[in-house]
């Protein structure tokens, strides 16, 4: 009986940890997406090509 009182909360905590463990790796997914998009759209140069274009665009008056 005593054992169960100690074990039950521990099982709860453990299952919570397992739940945390299957979180979505957002940074890795972004990296993977960038790699695939670069290939599909053949954006060979690593520097973001649109960053330059945005700067060159005159500000709206």
């Amino acid at each position, binding site marked *: 009986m005593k*054992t169960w009182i100690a074990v039950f909360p521990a099982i709860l905590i453990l299952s919570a940890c397992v739940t945390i463990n299957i979180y*979505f790796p957002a940074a*890795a997914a972004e990296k993977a997406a960038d790699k695939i998009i670069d290939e599909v759209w053949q954006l060979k140069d690593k520097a973001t090509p649109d960053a330059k274009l945005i700067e060159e665009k005159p500000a709206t008056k």
Partner: protein
Amino acid sequence: MMKKLFSILLILLATALAAPFASAAADLEVNTPAISSLKNSMQTRHGQLAAHYASGAIGLTKDGLIAMHDANAVPLAQRQSVNSLIAAENGDRNALYKEIASANGHPEWQDEVRSTFAQRWVQKAQNGWWYQDGGAWVKK
């Protein structure tokens, strides 16, 4: 008896806590044959789609797909073939998101993979291309 159980639980707890840090550093698996063939098919199709992105005929949707944005930008005679291109591209994109999620052992990640891609497609789109921001079409 209790002491032994407690130490076993402690070890399990430590392992469970350490696991996310280990996997956080890892890359997602994207080098499966299925993903490669989808990439190739999309890359080839992009040659036909690029002009339609630029003309505004096709835009990037918020769910990581593409859609007709301005049908008038396409001559009537070509509209059917553009629609077929859109359908084929969306088929590949849906398959790609599904495949990435399951290649990493988490089919339930599909929607998160999709929304990650939705953002990155827009981020990497050329200026002048259209994309959905919330409910509205926006020109980049």
